[in-house]
């Protein structure tokens, strides 16, 4: 799909680069984000990458939408697909099942797999942080192996503890703060995903690679 630039209100421009969860599309989104970040344009406040789009927040007292659109079109033309960024891989220890992985057995039953197979399939793949959102520090990761694709819970839980590892659809995530949640809970990690007191408050950044280590 050719990128499409549309206004979201009068202070953000949305660059839509696709409409699916796809690693190539997502890498183009991250590439565009890096190009904009590197240009450090006064009046462009910040950018938010998602699966297939980049939202660009700007100061409407400095820029009009049409001006921002021109800048973004130029940046889009500079995306080079062949340049692969070096990515970091973050290892995440996970205790599968138990109190904080309360849905693990139900997931295995639903998928007609053994619990140990769910653990093996979930932990053998390297995932990409496609985007962050929902709560501070929450990574949306994928793509899950097709054998682990699960619907969301019919009734979301009102409280899911911090550090809970979960799956839904073709995605896997980790609850970064205690919050309501509708994903299937399969494990728990002691790693802190968000610490507002720290100089580096987030464990993950969009574009990181992640490997789960069963413990």
């Amino acid at each position, binding site marked *: 799909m050719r990128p499409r630039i*549309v*206004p*979201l*209100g*009068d*202070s*953000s421009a*949305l660059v*839509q680069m696709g*409409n*699916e*969860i796809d690693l190539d599309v997502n890498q183009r989104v991250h590439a565009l*984000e890096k190009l904009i970040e590197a240009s450090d344009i006064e009046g462009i*406040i*910040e*950018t*938010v*990458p*998602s*699966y*297939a*789009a*980049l*939202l660009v*927040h700007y100061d*409407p*007292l400095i820029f*009009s*939408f*049409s001006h921002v659109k021109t800048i973004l079109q130029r940046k889009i033309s500079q995306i080079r697909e062949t340049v692969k960024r070096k990515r970091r891989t973050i290892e995440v220890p996970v205790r599968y099942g138990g109190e904080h992985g309360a849905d693990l057995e139900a997931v295995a039953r639903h998928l007609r797999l053994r619990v140990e197979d769910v653990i093996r399939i979930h932990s053998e793949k390297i995932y990409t942080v496609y*985007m*962050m*959102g*929902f*709560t*501070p*520090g*929450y990574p*949306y990761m994928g793509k899950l192996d097709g054998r682990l694709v699960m619907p969301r819970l019919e009734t979301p839980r009102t409280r899911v503890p911090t550090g809970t590892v979960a799956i839904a659809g073709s995605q896997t995530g980790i609850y*970064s*703060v205690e*919050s309501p949640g509708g994903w299937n809970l399969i494990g728990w990690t002691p790693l802190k995903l*968000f610490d*507002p*007191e720290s100089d580096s*408050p*987030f464990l993950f*950044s*969009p574009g990181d690679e992640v490997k789960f280590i069963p413990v």
Partner: protein
Amino acid sequence: MTLEAIDIGALATIQDSGRIGWRKFGVPTSGAMDSFAYRAANALVGNSPRAAALEIGLGDITFRARRDCVIAVAGAGYQLSVYIWDFPLWSSYYVRAGWTIRLTKLDSGMWAYLALTGGVQTQGRLGSASTNLRAHFGGLDGRQLQTGDVIHAGAPSHALSDLAARTLPESARPVYANNPVLDVIPGPQENFFTDESTATFMSQPYSLSVVSDRMGYRLEGAALTRRDNSELVSEGMTMGAIQVPASGQPIVMMADSPTTGGYPKIGAVASADLPLLAQCTPGRSKIRFRETTVAKAEKKYRELMAGLDGVINSD
């Protein structure tokens, strides 16, 4: 020590112009719900536009001044009294040590901003003083004010006597209304909805639901139906964006909006009209929307913000 909260029936939090630069990590901007009133209150007491102030909503609150200071209150939905006098909002006042400052909630309107000379001092988190109540950080340890809390102000930019008795003329203020008509810029998924639904949304009144909060204002009215049921993958959102979940009842995202969302957005409320929306009263206000263009919205916003330069000495 400047102000002590001695009686709180309100939702009062420390807010500023918002937490910038962390949205890609999923951190909402937070900040003032009515950013114009917040900016005006700071301008009236000679503060920088990003100085932290108190956002007060939902109920009454009383402070006692522990030392002389100049305050300004701007916004809607409140009656201000200082010591033994009732005073209008949108002006700055000299407050002597020992005097009380009382904000009493009126039936219509939602948020008042109390700015202090020198700004409210807190240890910022992620570059902002704003309170994020859901993730429990910023402001006062991530929580709302409680009785007994003491608010500290920084050094005033000028002599207190130069900062008192200033006002923002009525002509420069937003025209708040119980039942406003708000400009909406269509997109990005306007074409997901039937023409009839778009026309309905841009003409019929919607009630502001009582379950509205700082994260989102929920609307109740004619349900919007989709012609395109293809699934949308999550993408970035912003304050003012109008999401339409499966129920067809729109939700306008507000200051504590999540940074991303997966429901189609029929449009976004123009920045110049966000203060009018913020000050609508849940359970009372009926809101109408009308289509505008980005160019018109930009012009309207510039005109509104230029009004902040109009602070004058009122005596």
